[in-house]
């Protein structure tokens, strides 16, 4: 129970920090809505829905990247990450708290982005939305770990996309497949597997990212 309490305290802290600073969520919202508007005018008339679903995933991945790039900034101001690492809680709780907070921000951005997508482009059915939600979990699980790695380096703005985008390809394949394929369940299964494998890997390896041994 203490692990759950630690994760809850760390997630609550991230939400509170964002509520006060408003550094991440407004930027994500503006970016995703602006991107969809630009795509709306950039896409030639008569283009099929398949192309639009692809563009939705471009918007989702880059919006997530924006949030992830800011995810560990509060911990690097005033050196707070050292304080968290020294605390006697399981260090994976720090990763899980950050993952849940980032997921909350991404879901909040999508609460506006998905209706905007339906308005501008094409309808989204249940499997397409399930694909988005499953991909969100993978994006935040892997992204939080990679963002922590990138934040420790000097070229963090460059490093995070370089590390994250290749690992996001299966998520895009799964998300687009869930939206357009007649065999959508296979793509949803791919996303479930991805989430399971990468969440466990990230959970287990976070300690080695934030400590020297």
């Amino acid at each position: 129970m203490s692990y759950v309490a630690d994760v809850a305290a760390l997630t609550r802290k991230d939400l509170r920090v964002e509520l006060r600073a408003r550094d991440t969520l407004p930027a994500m919202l503006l970016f995703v809505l602006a991107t969809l508007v630009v795509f709306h005018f950039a896409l030639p008339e008569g283009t099929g829905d398949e192309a639009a679903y692809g563009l939705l995933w471009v918007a989702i991945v880059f919006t997530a990247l924006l949030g992830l790039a800011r995810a560990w900034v509060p911990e690097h101001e005033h050196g707070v990450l050292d304080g968290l690492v020294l605390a006697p809680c399981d260090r994976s709780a720090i990763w899980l708290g950050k993952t849940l907070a980032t997921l909350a921000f991404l879901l909040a951005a999508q609460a506006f982005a998905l209706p905007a997508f339906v308005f501008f482009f094409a309808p989204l059915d249940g499997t397409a939305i399930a694909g988005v939600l499953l991909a969100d979990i993978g994006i935040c699980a892997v992204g939080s770990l990679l963002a922590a790695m990138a934040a420790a380096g000097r070229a963090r703005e460059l490093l995070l996309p370089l590390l994250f985008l290749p690992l996001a390809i299966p998520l895009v394949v799964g998300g687009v497949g869930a939206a357009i394929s007649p065999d959508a369940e296979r793509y949803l299964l791919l996303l479930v597997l991805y989430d399971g494998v990468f969440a466990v890997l990230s959970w287990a390896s976070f300690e080695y990212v934030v400590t020297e041994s």
Partner: protein
Amino acid sequence: MIRALGIEKRYGRRRVLTGIDVSLAPGEFLIVTGPNGSGKTTFLRILAGLVAPTRGTLQVDVDRAQLGFLGHEPLVYRELTALENLDLFGRLYRVPKRRERIGMLLERFGLWDARSERVVAYSRGMTQRLALCRALLHDPDLLVLDEPHSALDEEGVQLLDRELAELAGVKTIVVSTHDPARVERFATGRLALV
């Protein structure tokens, strides 16, 4: 409580620490001195387990729950209040009677009236006082303090000296400082880095 033998630290080709030997029994008070760039902060971070030595052996007989660390940075969130910061760390450290302990420390370090203000609005001295509260929150057995007097005004310095006087002999304390005369009376050992 601490046994360090031949501690060396390199960053790339740059050697920051060489051949540091230290032995510290429970209740002892070690002053670490040296000019800027001599490796005081690195040595204290090694003791705290935040940095691994490149060479040498280090044995620290306390776990993370019993270590209090004050670094150059205050290790508190700028967007949270003093109460929220200490409550978060109090939860993570499983501090018993957390609220009473937080209230007592904030009173003692003169921050009670500013307890609900965000840290971003604090002066450097107030932030340093809060950092001291955070380091002492869980009543640690080993205190590692990196230049704890820096940024404190005269009142803050007196508060810290009073705290150190109470803790000296009871807790094991390692302090790096540019003003060793201020803590000389507590010291049982001295490590001069060059």
